[in-house]
């Protein structure tokens, strides 16, 4: 006990000791016009010399500089972005960003609740807007994130946040939009000392575990049919909207049979289903397509699942899903790693995905999955002015420089703890005379 108090005190001290967060932005006060950039709309279209205007946080004009006939005088603030690119703000999917600060420090970890069936658990209330991590993510162009709990069979509910806020309530863009199920695993087992590797046997309880899950869902569904149930069951209450498809059922599954059984499970339960993980999804595109199930493709900068696989399989999977007509998004594992989302998109482009398709995969497609595409996810009139201006191709680390970012028209501070430390120690060496 004493020890943990000391540790907590210790952690508080360093958090307080470091520089405070960049200030949350102030609301858009005047209309802003971005001119001459190459605009990647997010729906597959590109405007070479674009003109994008936004006011009160909403995009008012998306047009071509040459053909547009707007009244420029209306805009006191004009950004000439010639040679630059504009993209919709990217969206991180299925992440514990803000739920964890330092993975190895237990006291800072809030992503996994104990117990198996936790549909009522809500990630949003633990989302830490003062975490040092989101500022390092948004400075790479990611402006929204689906904050997602882990663990158990049913982990809980995710919410969508904007990465600039005073507290979680301000941050929330869409509350409790989905329930996350870790689908039963087809293989289980552990380390095999003889082969020096992991040797897993088929999970004999695979079917049984799915049946158990079906049982739980069936009861929740029956419960949902009642208008004023008694006794009140909070777990089932949390699942109520799954059956009216107001909430999405996120099924985390990677192997072929896990994915296909997961799709059939969602269908049987009458839920709007999305597969998360989907490492083998490229092998079963037909069933995904016929059931109109989208895939949140996990970590494509990964090793192939099997020794015999195409060594580039994970890099190629996005292009293969696209070719098969499966709606998909890219997603990165972990919290700080979210800043590499654009690079993962670039990797997919290198391995066959069309560039604008890659843009869609990290902007409009996630917005659709999250059910927020009416207001965000692409550069279209009437949508939020949640966008970034970059000096070069945002998917290529060789060229990417995010110059400005706006969330609902608010220009956000792109500095972060790391840029501050960089500055601080640059100063040190400048004082030493440099080299």
């Amino acid at each position: 006990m004493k020890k943990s108090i000391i540790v907590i005190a210790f952690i508080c001290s360093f958090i307080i000791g470091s520089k405070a967060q960049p200030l949350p932005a102030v609301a858009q006060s005047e209309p802003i016009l971005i001119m001459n950039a190459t605009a990647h709309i997010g729906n597959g279209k590109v405007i070479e010399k674009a003109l994008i205007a936004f006011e009160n946080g909403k995009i008012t004009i998306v047009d071509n500089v040459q053909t547009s006939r707007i009244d420029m005088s209306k805009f006191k603030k004009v950004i000439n972005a010639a040679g630059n690119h504009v993209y919709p703000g990217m969206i991180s999917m299925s992440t514990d960003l803000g739920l964890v600060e330092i993975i190895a420090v237990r006291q800072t970890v809030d992503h996994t609740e104990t117990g198996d069936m936790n549909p009522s658990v809500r990630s949003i209330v633990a989302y830490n807007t003062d975490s040092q991590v989101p500022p390092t993510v948004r400075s790479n162009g990611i402006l929204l994130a689906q904050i997602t709990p882990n663990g158990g069979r049913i982990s809980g509910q995710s919410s969508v946040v904007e990465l600039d806020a005073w507290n979680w309530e301000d941050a929330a863009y869409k509350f409790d939009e989905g329930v996350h199920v870790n689908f039963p695993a087809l293989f289980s087992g552990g380390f095999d000392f003889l082969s020096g590797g992991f040797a897993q046997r088929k999970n004999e309880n695979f079917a049984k575990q799915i049946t158990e899950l079906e049982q739980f869902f069936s009861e929740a569904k029956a419960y949902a049919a009642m208008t004023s149930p008694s006794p009140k069951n909070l777990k089932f209450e949390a699942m109520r909207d799954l059956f009216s498809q107001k909430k999405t059922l996120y099924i985390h599954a990677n192997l072929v049979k896990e994915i296909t059984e997961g799709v059939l499970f969602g269908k049987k339960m009458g839920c709007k289903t999305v597969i998360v993980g989907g490492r083998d999804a490229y092998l079963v595109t037909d069933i995904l397509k016929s059931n109109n199930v989208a895939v949140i493709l996990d970590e494509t900068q990964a090793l192939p699942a099997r020794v015999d696989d195409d060594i580039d399989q994970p890099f190629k999977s996005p292009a293969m899903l696209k070719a098969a007509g499966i709606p998909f998004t890219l997603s990165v594992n972990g919290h700080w790693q979210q800043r590499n989302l654009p690079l993962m998109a670039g990797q997919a482009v290198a391995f066959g995905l069309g560039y604008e398709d890659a843009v869609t995969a990290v902007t409009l497609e996630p917005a659709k999955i999250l059910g927020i595409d009416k207001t965000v996810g692409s550069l279209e009139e009437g949508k939020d002015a949640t966008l970034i201006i970059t000096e070069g191709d945002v998917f290529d680390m060789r060229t990417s420089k995010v110059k400005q970012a706006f969330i609902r028209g608010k220009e956000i501070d792109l500095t972060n703890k790391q840029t501050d430390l960089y500055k601080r120690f640059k100063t040190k060496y400048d004082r030493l005379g440099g080299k």
Partner: protein
Amino acid sequence: MRPNMRFFIALLWAAVILPPLSKAQKTFPQNGVFDERESLFAFTNATIVKSWNEKLDNATLLIRNGRIEAVGVGITIPKDAVVIDVKKKYIYPSFIETFGNYGMPEIPASTAQRGGGGFFGREQFVSNKKGAYSWNEAFKTEFKAHEVFAPNDKEAEILRGVGFGTVVTHQLDGISRGSAAVVSLSDERAHTSLIKPVAAHVMSFSKGTSTQTYPTSLMGCIALLRQTYLDAQWYANGGSKEEKNLSLEAWNALQSVPQVFDVGDKLEALRAAKIASEFSKKFIIKGRGDDYQRLNELKTTGSPLILPLNFPDAYDVEDPIDALQVALSDLKHWELAPTNPSRVAAAGIDFALTTNGLRNKADFFKQVQKAIEAGLTEGDALKSLTATPARLFGLESDLGSLDRGKIASFFISDKNIFAKDAKILHNWVQGRPYVLSDLDKVDPKGTYNLTVGNQNYVLSLGRGENTATKSGDSTKAKLDMTVLKNSINILFTPSGEKGMIRLSGVVENGNMSGRGQLADGTWVNWQAEAKGASAGNDEERKNTAEAKKEELGDVIYPFIAYGRKELPKSERVLFKNATVWTNETDGILQATDVLIEGGKILQIGKNIDASTAKTVDATGKHLTAGIIDEHSHITVARGVNEGAQSSSAEVRIADVINCDDINIYRQLAGGVTSSHILHGSANSIGGQTQLIKMRFGYEPEKMKFENWPGYIKFALGENVKRANGDGGVSSRFPITRMGVEQVFDDHFTRAREYLNAQKAGKFIRRDLELEALGEILEGKRHITCHSYVQSEINMLLKTADRHGFKVNTFTHILEGYKVAEKMAKHGAAGAGFADWWNYKYEVYDAIPQNAKLMQDAGVLASINSDDAEMARRLNQEAAKSVMYANMDEVAAWKMVTLNPARTLRVDSRVGSVKVGKDADLVLWSHNPLSIYAKAEQTYVDGVKFFDRQEDVKMQDEIRKERARLVQKTLLSKKSGAATQPVQRRTQRLYDCEDEDDEMR
């Protein structure tokens, strides 16, 4: 027959003709009347397979008092001999099991007590065994098999049943398992069955029941073996005056007998042989059955092998999706494992066969059959079970053939023992018979003409279902038959009739006759005359063997997917019109040609004319030096950390390179040509590291970077103080950064004293740990130190200054940017992640501008992986410094090529495109710093190890080979072969912190 029945019959025999149990034990008192006999037996008219290459027809074997008195044709049989006519039968010298634990005490199976700590556990630093024995509990050298040997007839019976008469037995426990004894499989007292008390010293790469923490890794085990050889020498040369050590005494005493080493796979076999050669020893290596996968290298070692017959069952591949989980290497091994003995034999390697590794030892002949079908000659099979084991263990004067004066251990079979349906009838051990089946046992087999009264039938017996067919009819009637000694009872309902015919009679000279009763109660006489013997099956086997041979897949190197049948060779190649990133003062050269030959860069320039060279059109492409990863843990076998102690300077990654790692190939595809394989970071002074070249397919020794000065891994911070365990369970010093300094101060003080003593010519115990540290003090070994925060970096710099050594590299150095000027002053290089942070507290201040700040302050900076996946995208990681800190592109590129080459002191060989340097080159599709860049071709020493177009072809070949093997597997299952469920095997990927005990 049930085993206990057999036993019962054996007892009957004993009662009739055998000397009493205590005969050989002269020292024992006798309760009752003495019954001493000569035990003289003559086996006549036999086909005697005297030795693996000498067969006598119609010969006699004479044995007396458990020894062979004579063997040959036309031998005079003494009048007092019991004559046993074994006409048409075969006599073989009985087999010798070379790797058994027969008669050894059971090893407690409780694993609960096991596991001496680890990352989260409490360590056991020294042996728990009482007495003046080795400090390490896995060294049980003092164990003597002969002292605890107790005959165990239940076990013996199983082995006798498959032709064995003798076992080299030991306790399968520990790294040094003590001595093995040679014992017979007789059921007499140990006084008789113990043939040779100390026959071998047995070792392994497994701790067994030791609960001690050290070693937790294979490299620790090897280091410990090495140190033990030295300690034993020291002990013999005078060390015994300083300490009494019974294990070392036993070790020295055992050096004159054969040394047997049990290994887990073919690469471990090479590792064992390497230890042997270091100490001018030769081990008999007991393999795992995959020896054929590295046959040439094994042959070079000159080690005899003991081969198991543990051929794997086929996998259940009926579901194509599930079958994806079965690796090509597993499918191929299933097909090729039975060819292991014949391939070993064809390579001219001395070998013995063992039953070890068989789930059911009674299957022994079934497995030998498979090996023979796969090409092993019967002669080689017999030799490997008789003459070779006898020779390997110095038993030739007693065993291994049927010669005068040798022990009378032999068996009698009804036919050639390697024929498919051959049966062992008797197994005589030291002149005592064990009867498995009567020699003249009635066993009607074949076709008989049966006459019952006036009705004729044709009987078919002993081939599947027994049947009776009425003459002139074609309908077969099922027939029941019982045989008791010579009496026979037959029962059947003739086709078309209702009642049963019951016959009773005897078998004599192969024919049968007797009395019977028809269904209506009429008594009749009956006779059955044999029509002819059953056909041999040797021909049949030959045919299957030939059929099998045709469809076998190739052995590939390495033995995994993407392995090649032939290793690629160095080529003369001209790259035309490339954008060349020289990393030299020339910078980036446009439209330039590069010619390589003999593994070196020969020429760089415009319009090079090299008509004989293979030309690669590199227009629009970028040619660079290969990527060098300063920090990697791929290709490590069984444990990346030897973390039981705060210093493990004695362990060497070089000992445990695993060349069968698919990540070598995957990283070649990411442009990596050299990789620095490090010990983990579990302790302050880790193990010696190894720089490898990514020569995919080569054996471990040939992957090593030649003439490379040695390096060693150090570590600081949370890992070494075990901060991320669960609540400070560890009792290993240190648990604070304060203590870490003490570890260095202490060890370098001792190392200095060691060097001084050595220089002064004092008698000292050679200590491999202190020697490695001494090499650091002498500037011969270089440090790469895992470190994160500025306080500890500065601490090590100051410690180094005090003790007079240099820190070559700070690896993981994520706070290097805070003390870069101190590092630069010391001359330490920095290597780190591009953008990792926040996975633990000590990386909370890590920033992606670190490399840039270090570089600007004059530190030689590199970007490394510590991750099997990221290593194949190190070009991208380097580019992150362009993204986050506007680093110049060439400077960024050097962070994964020339800078690590300099850091690793191999820049005279690699790291830039310069005439005379190694042709370690990568041809990129784009600017290599771009996310869109793909390595199209990767060369190491001018050998093209990766080619993106070839890769597409290989994928196709892999698919085809899998399909062929799957079809074959399915057929095998259809024909009744055993199968095993699909397993999902994933290769172990290490990072610094992995510290499982992999020595079990």
